[in-house]
């Protein structure tokens, strides 16, 4: 099911793009508020999950 791996590749890239936006919003001091901290955690979890799924699909 490479289709799933492709889908997760985009999901991870999009999540990292959201992280990129957080950098843009908080530069140059990067003082994250609680909502931003929550978002960062969520993004990291999402990317990890996507990478796990990609690994599972491609390198069994």
């Amino acid at each position: 099911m490479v289709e799933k791996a492709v889908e997760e590749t985009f999901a991870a890239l999009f999540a990292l793009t959201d992280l990129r936006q957080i950098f843009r919003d908080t530069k140059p001091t990067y003082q994250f508020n609680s909502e931003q901290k929550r978002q960062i955690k969520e993004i990291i979890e999402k990317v990890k999950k996507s990478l796990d799924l990609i690994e599972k699909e491609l390198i069994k």
Partner: protein
Amino acid sequence: MKQMIEEVEVRAREELFININPIQAAGRLTPEAMKAIMAYGDGYSTCDWCRKPFRLDKIQRPPISDFHIELAKFVGMDQVRVVPGARRGFQAVVSSLVEKGDSVIVSALAHYTEFLAVEGAEGIVKEVPLNEENVVTGEETAQKIEEVKKKTGKLPKLIILDHFDYMLGNEHDIHGTAKVAKDYDIPFLANCAYSLGVMPINGREIGADFLVGSGHKSFASPAPSGILATTDEWADKVFRTTQMVGDVTGRKFGIKEVELLGCTLMGANLIAMMASFPRVRERVKHWNDELEKINYFVDEFLKIEGNNVLSEMPRKHTLTKVDTTGSFDKVARTHKRRGFFFSDEMKKRWIVGEFVGATRQWKLNTYGLTWDQTKHLAQAFQDIAKKYGITVA
């Protein structure tokens, strides 16, 4: 910063620095637009489901056709096309209306691409001078029309006025000029490259026959991208379709629009514009917040002895021309790094985008900065001033 490909570094200045470059501020992408570029970066990516009648603005998947309809509503005009930059919008209109030797009224602060568009059509630009506040008014425009009429025996073929100019970011009398254009029955093009996409703009309310916007200047879109909107009255002329028939093959390309050379933004640029559109539609409602921030910044900036603002005050736009001849330039005169000392100091404080090495008259733009970033910026100017013994009130 790592190289993306050989000799091309990753551009991360928007993630690492406060960027006050005067022309880059409102063209910064939304995250949605960044995602769109990733997914639609391949050449003719918008053409996967292009079906009859085979024209970009008719494509329904992705919903490009709907976007055109919504965009026309957003700008308060009847019809709209996306174009590769505002300049291509000027070119399409001028090329449709102006013939050799015709006069075109432009502002004394007109963007250079308006000149080029007129020159391309072999027309002649006639500039409306600025008043004492560095603003173009309807009255001055009427005087210029009379002057042209007297000298050439003919009325100008078109009036183009920049809503906000590129040099000072001053607001020009777009409504008054539209009224004058109506009085003389001369078509009027409102150049809203610095306003459409950051503040509410309605072409119908302005009284414009043509409205031009810039995607990469003010619509959170990649370059080149732009908007050309018009009324039903003018659409048939500017968006006229080809009548040409091949003499050998008999081929014709019926629905393709001559001035646009057929399809325009065939890929990521258009999808990125579409992706940014919801946020753009929302952000124009918060223009007053942006004005609050730039006016806070200039207030703080003017506390530095010798600093001056050359743009109209209070600020009606975030693009602002400043003069630091009486402050930072005095330091530059004896500093071993000359004017570059100022850029060095800014960079140390994670700020870029000023004209590197310039310490006299230069431009900046605070659009899109958060309050924290705006305050950081103002503080940085004052800290640099204090470091070099310049008085801060």
